């Protein structure tokens, strides 16, 4: 066969394979979303938000799990934002170019993608065992540890994007570094830092593995975070694994809720970040 023809055919085959693979991938992902929405919508009604997790084969909702997830994620984000923003600021403004800074940055990247179940083991050992039992606090700490590296990373990246002229302006006015960072740098980087927080929140709101042996689960509505605590993923997992249809339906409805929340938060974060870029 003529060389030019062979190259041309090979190229066309490649285009077809690439397009086909893209279609297969998109179809698979669309299929998952389709199952999620069709099966999930069946369980969405008023009861879902007003009733607690039921016994098998009786009606109920996910109120306690929704409340639990919101409470634990809020506490977790409080931890993650305080530590993550400070650590990210330290890396970008104070000690990031020192050898110790390089070590911290590297370990933060490792923590960023460490298996979440190991974070669960960590919290079990250092929080659940000493405190003598599963608790909402332990769950919140586990989620906080998962979100912290994300907030640290985005904070550092965003602060590094700020022009040095801002820092020089602060110094020229005789402001201390604290005032420069607080009043100039953080303010200029606000939208980007908020995006980092939202991404962290999106990541932890669907996490199941680290909650299994930190927060455990709770069948009733509870606001006492020193006791075992309900969460959406914590309710979905046993419900999905159970043989009862009513529980399975609730699990799908819960999965749909989490997915919508995660997608919503992600889209909000992107929108904020884009707003910033286009200024």
């Amino acid at each position, binding site marked *: 066969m003529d060389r030019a023809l062979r*190259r041309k055919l*090979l*190229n066309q085959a*490649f*285009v077809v394979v*690439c397009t*086909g*693979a*893209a279609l297969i*991938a998109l179809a*698979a*992902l669309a*299929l*998952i979303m389709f*199952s999620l929405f069709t099966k999930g919508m069946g369980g969405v009604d008023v009861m879902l938000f007003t009733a607690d997790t039921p016994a098998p084969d009786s009606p109920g909702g996910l109120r306690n799990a929704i409340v639990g997830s919101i409470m634990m994620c809020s506490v977790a984000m409080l931890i993650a934002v305080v*530590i*993550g923003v*400070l*650590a990210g600021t*330290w890396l970008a403004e*104070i000690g990031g170019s020192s050898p110790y*800074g390089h070590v*911290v940055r590297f370990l*933060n*990247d*490792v*923590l960023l*993608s*460490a*298996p*979440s*179940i*190991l974070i669960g*083991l*960590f919290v*079990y050992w250092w929080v659940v065992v000493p405190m003598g039992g599963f608790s909402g606090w332990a769950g919140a700490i586990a989620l906080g*540890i998962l979100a*912290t590296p994300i907030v640290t990373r985005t904070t550092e990246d965003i602060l*590094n994007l700020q022009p040095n002229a801002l820092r020089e302006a602060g*110094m020229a006015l005789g*402001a*201390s*570094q*604290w005032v420069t*960072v*607080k009043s100039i740098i953080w303010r200029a980087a606000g939208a980007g830092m908020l995006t980092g927080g939202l991404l962290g929140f999106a990541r932890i709101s*669907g*996490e*199941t*593995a680290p909650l*299994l*042996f930190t927060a455990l689960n709770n069948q009733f509505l509870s606001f006492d975070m020193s006791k075992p605590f309900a969460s959406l993923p914590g309710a*979905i*997992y046993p419900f*999905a*694994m159970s043989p009862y249809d009513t529980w*399975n339906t609730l699990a799908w409805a819960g*999965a749909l809720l989490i997915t919508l929340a995660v997608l919503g938060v992600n*889209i909000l974060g*992107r929108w904020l970040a884009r707003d910033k870029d286009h200024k």
Partner: protein
Amino acid sequence: MSLQSARQSSFLARFLADPADPIFRSLAFAAATMLLVTLGGLIIALIIGGWPALSKFGLSFLFTNSWNPVTEVYGAAGPIVGTLITALLSLAIALPIAVCVSVFLTQYCPKVIAQPISTAIELLAGIPSIVYGMWGLFVFAPWFAKTVQLPILTNLDPESFWGKLLSGVPNGANIFTASIVLAIMILPYMAAVFRELFRSIPPHVREAAFGLGCTSFEVVGSVLIPYVKKGMIGVVMLGFGRALGETMAVTFIIGNSHRFPDSLFASGSTLASTIANEFNEAQGLHLASLIGLGLVLFLITFIVLAIARTLLSSQRY
């Protein structure tokens, strides 16, 4: 960053100028150190917690396959091999497709639909893994059992090589289906980052290759992919790390048996799924063995992630 050195002045001078300043710097330093302490604390917890099992079984913990809470003999070979097989298999499935998707999006797809598809893929990368696990359990496994496993089981000679490789209870909960669900899970993530890598290539590199008369296949294969090779290997390692440590997507569908995996269509277990399944019922040596599994998982993923991060150096993904 160049201004960091310009800030060298004594603690006392800083304190006198603005008392809040040294406090802020110390707090920021403490926060950065917290990350270090967390990782250190994780290693200590895993070693101390797993020590009873590790000291009792020694190296045989890694190389034997028995998981018996009654006789209290534990060996992790089954979960270790299960973890490696599912992770490698899912990577082998997801990697070519992810490369194709990113090439399609950056080279062939009309710009008008490329942007929405890319955004959709990036959003899908953030879907919680429990959703993928539920889809695997309720939708994919029953379909797979009926349309793939049963025909194979009835048509293949069970004594042949393929018959042995593909034998197993036809319920769809096995190592192969778990790998496919894992592959679908890491696919959007890898495709999204590959696309970013391709887009980071300066346009004149591509134009030069086309100018030499390359076909688009040759441009991608001989110019673009080698240009971002290092970053791509890093991303592959990150995807591998995700597949290794993924818990929920796998626990739903792998069948959770402690047999040593001898067939692709047999149920098995991974390190993470074993921990997730048994932790709350475990006590004593059983608990220590599960934490020992955690230590093994940590060591494997730490090595993989360390290589990935070194290759990706300062890029953020």
